């Protein structure tokens, strides 16, 4: 509890301590990454269903606000609930057949579906095809959510992250949360204890998809631009998986911890190497995957749990 309060205070204080645009930008990017990774964590971490196709929900969430603006001149925020609704339908359509598969086969199926959607969107004129869509360049009012500075975005994103984490915390404590962890630990045994495995997985995917869609919407509204790669690209999915796995998949704060490490690191490599370093993101991701898989499959959370008691002991002695 103390840790949670300290964390909240730190996040509230950050934009005032590091008020220059560069650091604020990192803060916003970090919060967004934490939101999407936390959303992924519900189905990928707790239920252990490693989806590598979550960009499909992120993309839907990102496209809808700009679609409603482009075609009907509606405020982008109108597209957010529509994006959530479509993501929920998509989650059911994708979840029903793919949850018959387990382990790697499930992951591969999700990649395939996401790539299919990316290809369709990149040739679909209505959705801006390969060029993408743009939001309002100048806000027509507060409802367009186009702010000049980063500060309002920072607090909106922080608010959404708090909601996602609060819901996750609540899920952890309910029957639903226990069932998710049981499914991860052993589907066959879970089933024999009366856990409705397929339905539980589907609900988890729907909840996760809804939050991921919101993350996509936030990204598009803030950036004011979306194209097939930044919405439906595989890197979007991979980033969620890596951040969650780095911090500790299936734990409340794991994704946030992962984002705290990965986003500054990513920004650092991008700044040092400038435009020439774009490919470095892939190398960074690859390196992290190797390190996590080889040394710390439970992520930093598990490492901390192992090390912390020893540290206290030394401290006491």
């Amino acid at each position: 509890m103390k840790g949670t309060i300290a964390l909240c205070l730190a996040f509230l204080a950050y934009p005032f301590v590091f008020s220059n645009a560069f650091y604020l930008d990192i803060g916003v990017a970090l919060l967004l990454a934490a939101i999407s990774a936390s959303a992924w964590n519900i189905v990928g971490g707790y239920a252990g269903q490693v989806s590598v196709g979550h960009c499909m929900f992120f993309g839907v969430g990102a496209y809808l606000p700009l679609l409603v603006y482009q075609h009907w001149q509606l405020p982008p925020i109108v597209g957010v609930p529509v994006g959530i609704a479509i993501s929920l339908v998509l989650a059911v359509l994708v979840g029903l057949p793919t949850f018959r598969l387990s382990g790697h086969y499930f992951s591969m199926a999700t990649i395939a579906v996401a790539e299919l959607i990316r290809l369709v969107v990149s040739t679909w004129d209505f959705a801006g095809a390969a060029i993408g869509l743009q939001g309002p360049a100048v806000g027509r009012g507060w409802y367009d959510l186009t702010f000049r500075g980063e500060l309002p975005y920072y607090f909106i994103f922080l608010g959404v992250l708090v909601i996602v984490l609060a819901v996750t915390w609540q899920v952890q404590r309910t029957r639903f949360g226990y069932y998710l962890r049981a499914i991860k630990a052993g589907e066959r045994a879970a089933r024999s204890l009366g856990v409705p495995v397929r339905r539980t997985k589907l609900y988890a995917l729907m909840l996760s998809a809804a939050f991921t869609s919101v993350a996509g919407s936030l990204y598009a509204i803030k950036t004011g631009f979306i194209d097939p790669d930044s919405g439906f690209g595989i890197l979007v999915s991979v980033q969620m998986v890596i951040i969650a796995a780095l911090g500790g998949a299936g734990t409340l704060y794991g994704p946030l911890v992962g984002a705290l490490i990965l986003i500054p690191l990513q920004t650092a490599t991008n700044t040092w190497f400038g435009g020439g370093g774009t490919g470095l993101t892939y190398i960074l991701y690859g390196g992290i995957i190797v390190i996590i898989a080889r040394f710390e499959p439970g992520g930093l959370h598990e490492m901390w749990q192992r090390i912390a008691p020893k540290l206290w002991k030394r401290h006491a002695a």
Partner: protein
Amino acid sequence: MLLSAQNVSKEFGNLRAVAGADLAIEEGEIIGLIGPNGAGKSTFFNCLAGETLPTTGKIVFDGVDVTTASPETHARLGIGRTFQVPATFEDLTVLDNVMVGAFLRHPHRTHARAHALKVLDLVGLKDRQDLRARSLGTPGRKRLEIARVLATGPRLMLLDEALAGLTPAELQQAIALVRKIHETGVTLVIVEHIMEVIMTLARRIIVFNQGHVIAQGEPQQVVKDEAVIEAYLGRGHRNWRKKD
């Protein structure tokens, strides 16, 4: 009658693992299911638990046809089972393991927790409730599996070699535990290789061989049965005895 299986068969390609097996279980019984390796016990057992779909036949539990019902439905109706190799949730604590079972009849967390603690007390794992399942040894994990099933409130419990691999002392404790569970009103089907367990616990024994039920009856009677001795020792055992 609590459960009846009529003419249950299961074929895997050309192999008939179970060939027209019949079984009737009355409420309150303890039934031992024995037979040599590969006799079809486990396949039949899995048909009863809803994990394997029989090729032919019909299984009725308390008036409900459960032949094609899922394992979840079996659990909900009151048929619980353990696994030959303990399938405990290794990363979860002992208490959380049992709570997953308890949630079936107690949707609310505090109620599920209270019920799980009661069950842990019964099986004697209460002092280890905060340990992760992986840190228990084989006897502990078998006990935990039984606890988990017990928490779902079963009327019929299927134990698949739940007592195998225990030391003689642990075995006595486990037998006492099974008796205690039976006293709470749970009907039991026990698949077991250890004759000591079967002879002391079961009131009725069903003997499987090559997919068929070759004998059934009271323990003392079954061990003297010609067909049973033949299935276990082979046809030549009498001549061999005479020579001796």
